């Protein structure tokens, strides 16, 4: 008993150490991905900066905005133009000379003050509850509705859920469990031609309200008796860009940096003129030789592959025609824009034309990068990786039970059934390879010249990757009427091919390593060669044969697995592995890896037990 | 090389013993209980002597030799080699050990095998090679210096191991049935060689054997041991004249001494519990 403990304790310690080492290893392998997620701006959440509507529209001439207002840093705008009339800025409030144009559309309450409907179409217009501004906000799940899907994942499952204009009731319309919302009825498929609206999916309201469809607003907290109004026209406080307005300067800077370069809804205005964010292409195509290009409009900023070109230094312009100093290569992109982003991180823009003195250069709306979606540090991003290159060790154990029970027992895809199928294939391969190996070994021992001629080529045959010939093998077998789906022959051939070699070598060596004295003894009894073979050679060969069968068992397993991956047979561990390679979860791959390794270990041990049973006299040092 | 004069009778010259064994016991732990390999051994060996340990299997003669060599440790009692503990003597490399098997390293040539102990003692290369050459000459194998061990016969390999044991001129030579695996004719030749070496170098030698003629022919004293438990039962001085020759084997005195040793052995068998 003590010996057993003595022998297993170190093993357990080493296994434990390997397990623990898995954690830093997993972190190490996942670090580059996590770091990328952290630093790649494309993976950051975005925030929209837009002109502020007043918090309070109760008082006729006073507007409160809630944040301190910088008189020079902004201006009051109405729609797409600066507000014409006089106004005074004081701290966070603005007083106007006269009444300001305010167009309000009331909502109709559909229920106890939570669901409201309007005839207007949903827009960016602010919503006021009893004259106070409400903030919208919602969380959208990753999954898209397809008419059949009922499960949608959210970051939290408490709160208010809406779908297609309706407030969902827990227990009646849905159930929640651990971050997954399960609807009673599937979310309907989006059939309209226009791009899918966010509210086609179930939404979780995170702000004060959310638009649940084109005409419906649902509040997070019901406010019975409240008056909800949509402010179609209202003044707003917009940000003024920094930079000298002197008729010469063209460079202006936004307050917030980290601009999203691809923001198509960015609205930068000079007075009431909207500068478009998109670029226009020339009429002619670049061919590596041409230097003259015509644009739809004169003026504008020229961008070559995103970089602003300088008039005079890089090109000449005459009206709408531009002549470059260097010909344009075919791969380059030349765009004409109303303004160019000089430095997205700093929020610096270059306008096409210098605004005249006294103009207002302001921004109505633009998007900036907020923060990484995955977390604040590399470690957090590591933990939130959707796919870890190497899973954390304990996941393999926690995910194993669900892996086994994923498919029911009767199905071919059930793991245990797959294991059984592969084990069967391995056994057949081992037996066939063993038969061939033993036969060849016997042949080699009896006919020495044959061994000399064939042995180098038997060795060479092992360097041939038989696996490549599996498709060909399948075709040939099909020609002879043997279908792979029902036959175990391909497995037997491939696995047998991989295992016959070590068995041949080992058995031949064993059959030869008989003690000369033992042979002499047999000769003194005038035994026939067959008797010598079976009574002496075979026994002395057994240790070698068993040792080589262990190697052969491992090889047969590899052969069986490979034939399962290559043939179109949808059974076995090989098939499962292939499936997971193409689609799957890393933890599942590791589980399959352990299962297949365990199967290999089991087979090798089984050979060892067979040896102890059949050749008990062999002494292991 | 040590040359020490011996008187005609071969009796030890009066001086402090070079090896002293006092009340030494050795037991081995095993599954079935303790095995007493050696019990109450007492022995003193003077410088320049040739002492044989003889006895049946299990009498502890190899054990005693290994204890002196510090290849095993005593359970109780004291052994002094040149006035030091066996361990210190071993670390000071005071003796050379010749095993039952030649124990040559297959990957070294004959000469390099002889050089092995000298390499371990950081002897400079030129001197090392010179010494090894000399020793191979001494054992008559200088022609095989560049051969590998497997190319030599058993007797030759054993000669190489003797040359190796002498390579660093130890004052003591411990030999454990070195000629056991050889045939009679080769053995007698080897015995003559060994005696010649002993005379030329004056090395104190302790020689384990189970052959009575060998023990009588080679030694100045024979230590008779018996088994169960292993112990020393008799110490017989041999007064055969030196140098011993082929004729010595046929002399009457030789026969008498051999008979005496044989009787001592038989007596110890009978006395065994």
């Amino acid at each position, binding site marked *: 008993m003590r010996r057993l403990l*003595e022998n297993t*304790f*170190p*093993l*357990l*310690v*080493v296994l434990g150490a390997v397990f623990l080492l898995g954690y830093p290893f997993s972190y190490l*392998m996942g670090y580059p991905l996590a770091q990328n997620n952290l630093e790649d701006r494309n993976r950051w959440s975005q925030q929209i900066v837009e002109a502020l509507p007043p918090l309070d529209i109760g008082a006729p001439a006073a507007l409160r905005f809630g944040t301190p207002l910088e008189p020079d840093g902004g201006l009051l705008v109405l729609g797409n133009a600066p507000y014409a009339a006089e106004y005074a800025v004081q701290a966070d409030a603005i007083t106007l000379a006269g009444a300001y144009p305010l167009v309000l559309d009331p909502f109709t309450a559909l229920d106890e003050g939570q669901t409201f409907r309007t005839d207007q179409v949903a827009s960016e217009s602010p919503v006021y509850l009893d004259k106070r501004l409400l903030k919208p906000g919602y969380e959208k799940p990753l999954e898209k509705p397809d008419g059949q899907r009922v499960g949608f994942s959210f970051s939290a499952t408490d709160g208010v859920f809406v779908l297609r204009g309706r407030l969902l009731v827990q227990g009646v319309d849905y159930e929640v469990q651990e971050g997954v919302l399960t609807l009673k009825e599937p979310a309907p498929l989006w059939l309209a031609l226009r791009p899918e609206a966010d509210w086609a999916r179930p939404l979780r309201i995170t702000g004060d309200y959310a638009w649940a469809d084109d005409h419906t607003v649902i509040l997070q907290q019901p406010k019975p008796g409240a008056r909800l109004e949509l402010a179609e026209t209202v003044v707003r406080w917009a940000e003024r860009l920094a930079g000298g307005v002197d008729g010469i300067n063209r460079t202006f800077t936004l307050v917030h940096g980290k601009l999203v370069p691809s923001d198509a809804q960015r609205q930068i205005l000079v007075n009431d003129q909207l500068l478009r964010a998109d670029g226009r292409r020339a009429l002619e195509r670049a061919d590596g030789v041409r230097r003259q290009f015509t644009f739809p409009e004169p003026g504008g900023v020229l961008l070559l592959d995103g970089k602003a070109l300088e008039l005079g230094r890089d090109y000449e312009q005459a009206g709408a025609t531009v002549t470059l100093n260097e010909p344009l290569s075919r791969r380059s992109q030349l765009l004409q824009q109303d303004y160019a982003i000089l430095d997205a991180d700093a929020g610096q823009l270059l306008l096409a034309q210098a605004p005249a003195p006294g103009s207002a250069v302001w921004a109505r709306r633009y998007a900036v990068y907020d923060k990484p979606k995955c977390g604040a540090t590399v470690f957090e991003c590591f933990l939130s990786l959707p796919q870890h*290159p*190497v899973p954390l060790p304990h996941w393999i154990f926690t995910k194993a039970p669900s892996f086994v029970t994923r498919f029911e027992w009767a199905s071919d895809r059930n793991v245990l059934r797959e294991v059984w199928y592969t084990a069967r294939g391995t056994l057949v391969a081992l037996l066939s390879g063993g038969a061939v190996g033993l036969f060849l070994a016997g042949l080699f021992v009896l006919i*020495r*010249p044959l061994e*000399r*001629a*064939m*042995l180098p*080529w038997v*060795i*060479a045959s*092992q*360097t*041939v*990757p038989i*696996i*490549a010939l599996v498709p*060909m093998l399948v075709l*040939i077998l099909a*020609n002879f009427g043997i279908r792979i789906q029902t036959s175990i022959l391909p497995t037997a051939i491939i696995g047998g091919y991989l295992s016959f070699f070590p068995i041949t070598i080992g058995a031949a060596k064993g059959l030869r390593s008989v003690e000369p004295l033992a042979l002499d003894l047999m000769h003194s009894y005038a035994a026939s060669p067959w008797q010598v073979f079976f009574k002496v050679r075979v026994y002395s060969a057994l240790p070698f044969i068993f040792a080589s069968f262990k190697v052969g*068992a*491992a090889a047969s*397993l*590899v052969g069986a*697995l*490979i034939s399962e*991956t290559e043939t179109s047979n949808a059974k076995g561990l090989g098939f499962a592995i292939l499936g*997971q*390679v193409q689609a799957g979860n*890393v933890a599942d*791959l*590791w589980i*399959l*890896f*352990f299962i297949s*390794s365990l199967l*290999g*270990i089991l087979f*090798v041990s089984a050979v060892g037990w067979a040896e102890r049973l059949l050749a008990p006299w062999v002494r292991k040092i | 090389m040590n040359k020490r004069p011996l008187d005609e009778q071969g009796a030890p010259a009066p001086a402090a013993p070079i090896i002293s064994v006092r009340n030494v016991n050795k037991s081995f732990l095993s599954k079935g209980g303790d095995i007493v390999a050696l019990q109450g051994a007492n022995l003193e060996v003077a410088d320049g002597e040739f002492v044989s340990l003889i006895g049946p299997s299990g009498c502890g003669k190899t054990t005693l030799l290994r204890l002196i*060599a510090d*290849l095993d440790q005593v359970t109780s009692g004291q052994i002094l080699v040149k006035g030091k503990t066996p361990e210190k003597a*071993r670390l000071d*490399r005071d003796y050379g*050990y010749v*095993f*039952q*098997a030649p*124990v040559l390293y*297959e*990957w070294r040539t004959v000469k390099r095998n002889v050089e092995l102990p000298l390499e*371990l003692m950081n002897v400079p290369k030129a001197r090392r090679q010179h010494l090894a050459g000399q020793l191979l000459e001494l054992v008559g194998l200088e022609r095989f210096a560049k051969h590998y061990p*497997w190319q030599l016969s058993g007797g030759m390999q054993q000669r190489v191991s003797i040359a190796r044991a002498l390579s660093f001129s130890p004052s003591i030579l411990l030999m454990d049935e070195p000629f056991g695996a050889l045939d009679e004719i080769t053995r007698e030749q080897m015995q003559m060689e060994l005696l010649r070496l002993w005379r030329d170098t004056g090395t104190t030698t302790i020689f384990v054997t189970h052959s009575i003629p060998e023990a009588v022919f080679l030694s100045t004293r024979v230590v008779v041991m018996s088994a169960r438990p292993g112990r020393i039962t008799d110490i017989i001085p041999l007064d055969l004249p030196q140098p011993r020759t082929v004729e010595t084997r046929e002399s009457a005195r030789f026969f008498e001494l051999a008979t005496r040793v044989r009787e001592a052995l038989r007596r110890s068998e009978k006395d065994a519990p």
Partner: protein
Amino acid sequence: MKLNVVALLGVLLGLAGMLGPWSSGTLGLNEAAAWEWVPLWALIALWLLASFFKRPWAHVLSLTLGLAGSLVALLAFKSMLAAGHAGPAGWGFWCTFGGGLVVTVGALTKLSVLQGTDRVTRLLRDFLPPATVPFMLFLAWEAVTEGMRIPMAFFPRVSDVYQVLISSYDVLIADSARTVFKQVLSGYVIGVSAGVFVGLVVAFSLFLRRGFLPLATAFSAIPIVGLAPVLGRAFGVDWESKAAVAVIVSFFPVVINVVQGLITIDPLKLDLMRSYAAGRKHVLFKLRLPNALPYLFNALKIASIIVLISVIVSEFLIPGPPQGLGQRISLSARSGRYDVTFATIAFASAIGIVFYNVIALLERLLTSWHSSFRQK
């Protein structure tokens, strides 16, 4: 003058074949051009002549003539196909072709029982038979595919494969450079070095021996099919994952064998060192390491074979850039270009053989003293 029975059988077959139909619609070889059947008759006559002698040179001659005869028969058949005679080969062709091979086999059996240890005899007995086998194999392969008119999409001919080899060897070399040098060699070197290092550490700690060795033995039974995908996920689909496969596959056999070699020592040799009061460093360098070398090389040889196959197989299993021997094999097999597949396989096998023999040569240089090199 002893008759070589087997060779005579070959002669008879050859004769019979000359009289039978060679392709559909012909009565015999007589319809072929004279330059085809004249040499064949001559060769058959020579076969007969050579079979009557028992000197080694006669056997060598017989062997060469047998192969030549089969080759000429094959060429004659091909030219008949080119001249318009269609269809699969008739029994006449098979008999004559087979006759040549039988003559060759007869010569081989006589050669392989030659007695003597002089260089010439050794050359004839030990070297010639294995060297002849591939020639016979290729002739038979070509004859079967050509004679039975097997379409290339089913099984390519030797000549097809050869065509691919000479026309696209630069592509194959580029593939090999990627597969072998970047993936196999780097993985092998790292795996072997790590194996030796860990082996040294484990050998000297009983605790680690008990704890680590069973794991190592168990893990040498890891199927590549399970290992490759997880490494592909861990290291990405480029060459690093395949090199990682190579590292793992070479690591385990080396560790196990190095530990075995360091501790499986004759106890008397250790006692010898102890009697010389040798320090641990001396014992390591002068006894344990040289003793372990044969074991190490055993592992190196095994690993050298396994590592190449494992990398090629992992190229199948880890989808990556379409270069490399494994990818070439996989892609060509899937698109039915079996001639390319075979050409690549031949290339890979050649590399494997060279690799193995380099290690074996190194083994012979460094451990020539070992008992396995002595003649029994």
